[in-house]
């Protein structure tokens, strides 16, 4: 006890000194680097400390090159913070956040429209990628920054031990999952392994986020555009009923062990069974590659395309866009930053380094993710993004649609005795209501 107290004293002194210096730095800094300074941009990203370190490196390179200073704020609970900043009508100059939130932000008037031609190097981004930032009124409201698509992470040592190969169809995936659950792939003599990891909670819409790939692979859609700027809900289709029924019967209400225990209340931060080494498959985004290389270990698993369903192998793609906050008068500086971020140099910086990379699949078409990282697994992800991926429609405000879909899927998977057709019919009516709220219902 005494030892600890003694060691704490210098630490306390250090903290106090750091605080004193910190305040001094702030005091002198606020004059030159305040948010009113036209040569300083306030930039927000939704990042934990580790990826934030990567952003910091990227922004430092930008400042060195252009002299424009960045007041960088990594914000963990981004949406809450942004909503409270919005209520004071004082937004950050530049925000980097999920693509699927664009419609929501635009609907609230938080974003400045963007002319792609005003961003130097805009022609190095493919038309397909640019098209994903078109808002409901036909204008662009974001600049693509990073893209990703889901792939299947699978334990290759387990496959090897059981003499199986990586699944390419739903049926194969199911039999591999059952084998993982029942044939003791880790060889410890205990029945403590599971087939696949599912973040199936309705919280934050996870069930819809994870389930979307299955819906598309089964030929279903959550909502579909009618080509005239309006949408209709599509969860009552035969394809949707078949797909959801298949998922319910096989993944949630079938044999034990196909999904990890607690899947119905799991969010991504609690669905850690893949890195804990007790589940063999996880269909997820490539940002987990860095984590999984540590545990279970780079040599223990492989990255393969997601198994295909009856209607193909499309997976969910998403990523981050660069957004400009409405009503700030620093257009030149913002455009310079965006141009740097999507340039080969900016993208390369954000894809490498010892901290978690913040660009997964580069939006700059002159770059190849696998080459930049010298890691062939990234070509699987890049190919999935380019050839067989779909995104949530981002023109409408997708947040309520995703949440309602997740609520409904979670309920269907929880109550095994329910009637899928009528439950999806109810969901469809709810979705129609959501679209109607946005004046988007056909």
């Amino acid at each position: 006890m005494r030892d600890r107290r003694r060691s704490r004293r210098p630490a306390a002194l250090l903290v106090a000194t750091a605080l004193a210096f910190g305040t001094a730095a702030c005091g002198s800094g606020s004059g030159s680097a305040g948010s009113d300074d036209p040569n300083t941009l306030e930039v927000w990203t939704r990042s934990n400390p580790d990826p934030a370190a990567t952003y910091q490196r990227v922004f430092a390179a930008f400042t060195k090159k252009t002299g424009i200073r960045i007041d960088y704020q990594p914000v963990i609970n981004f949406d809450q913070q942004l909503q409270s900043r919005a209520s004071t009508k004082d937004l950050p100059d530049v925000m980097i956040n999920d693509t699927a939130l664009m419609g929501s932000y635009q609907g609230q008037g938080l974003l400045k429209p963007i002319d792609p031609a005003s961003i130097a190097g805009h022609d190095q981004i493919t038309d397909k990628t640019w098209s994903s930032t078109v808002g409901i009124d036909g204008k662009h409201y974001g600049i693509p920054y990073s893209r990703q698509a889901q792939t299947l992470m699978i334990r290759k040592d387990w496959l090897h031990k059981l003499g199986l190969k990586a699944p390419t169809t739903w049926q194969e995936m199911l039999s591999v999952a059952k084998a993982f659950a029942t044939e003791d792939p880790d060889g410890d003599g205990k029945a403590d392994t599971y087939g696949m990891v599912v973040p199936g909670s309705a919280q934050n819409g996870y069930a819809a986020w994870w389930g979307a790939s299955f819906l598309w692979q089964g030929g279903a859609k959550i909502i579909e555009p009618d080509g005239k700027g309006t949408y209709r809900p599509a969860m009552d289709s035969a394809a949707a009923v078949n797909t959801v029924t298949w998922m319910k019967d096989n993944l949630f209400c079938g044999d034990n062990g196909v999904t990890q225990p607690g899947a119905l209340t799991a969010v991504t931060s609690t669905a850690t069974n893949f890195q804990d080494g007790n589940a063999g498959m996880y269909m997820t985004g490539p940002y987990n590659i860095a984590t999984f290389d540590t545990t279970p270990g780079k040599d223990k698993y492989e990255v393969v395309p997601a198994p295909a369903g009856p209607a193909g192998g499309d997976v969910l793609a998403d990523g981050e866009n660069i957004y400009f906050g409405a009503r700030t008068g620093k257009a030149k500086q913002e455009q310079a930053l965006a141009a740097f971020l999507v340039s080969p140099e900016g993208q390369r910086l954000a894809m490498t380094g010892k901290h978690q990379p913040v660009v997964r699949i580069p939006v700059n078409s002159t770059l190849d993710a696998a080459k930049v990282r010298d890691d062939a697994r990234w070509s699987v992800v890049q190919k999935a993004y380019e050839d067989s991926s779909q995104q949530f429609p981002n023109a409408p405000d997708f947040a309520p649609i995703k949440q309602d879909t997740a609520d409904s899927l979670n309920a269907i998977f929880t109550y095994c005795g329910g009637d899928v057709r009528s439950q999806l019919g109810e969901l469809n009516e709810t979705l129609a209501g959501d679209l109607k709220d946005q004046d988007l219902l056909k």
Partner: protein
Amino acid sequence: MTATVTTPAARRVSGVLSKKAVVPWLFLAPGLLLALVFKFWPMAKGIWLSFFDVQPFLGDQWIGLDNYTRVLTDHRFQDAIGHTLVLGIGQSVGAILLGFVLALLLEGQARSLKIIRTAVFLPAVTATAVVGELWRLMYYPTSDGLLNSGLHLLGLGPVQFLDNPDIALYSTVAMGIWIWAPYNMVILLAGLAGVDRSLYEAAAMDGVSLWQRLRYVTLPAIRPALMIVLTLATIRGLRVFTEVYVLTGGGPAGSTDVWMTRAYTLGFTRNDIGGASAASVVLLCVTLLLTVTVNYLRKRGDAR
């Protein structure tokens, strides 16, 4: 302490009533100012926003009571009321009973009791989010989980504590009781310390049973403490959020969704600030009403 300092000072300037009246306000000023800026102003703003379709940059639109009718007619909010009541009442009653038992067991001056009391009090000072993670592990739905391994020894289970929609709410109640019982225990201990010992001796002389002693001596003596605990528990029960959010996130299938988690989802995942404000104002009104009622009953009880 402050009272003994100010009283002589005030006496010296006797006659200047206004000054005497000002001093307490001066002491209160910093707290009041903070409360004004961080509590009452946001609260007022929340009430104001609940009448609008909130779009900060496009201009808020006055929609009157629409948010209220929407929230109150939403079947998920209606379900949430039921869950809030079960959770609130279950958690409050459970935590008060357990807190009372703990207080009775751990009352006294012995040194070892102090250590045990501290240990028992720990849940109340641990961050609820941490407790939630801990209980998630304890509730792990296979025989690897702490509780299920216990059940396994008895040849039972494994129980899907959190993933079975029929059980999840009660699992949350159990965690709530665990968190709040020690908190209640401390207040009740303070109440027990005020019980006149001679009454116990007299009761012992009269040869009354343990139950009679509790019923006619202890309970009446700690009535004020019980009332405080009850009022706090009522408020806490209604606005329960963290316990549910970290343990189940309102799932599975919305079976543990309470009023606050619904309001949170509305405000922050659906970006419907107006609706979330309306839901919060409804909760504020109900809480106020309940607190006033409990207080009224307490005063009436005191008068009698």
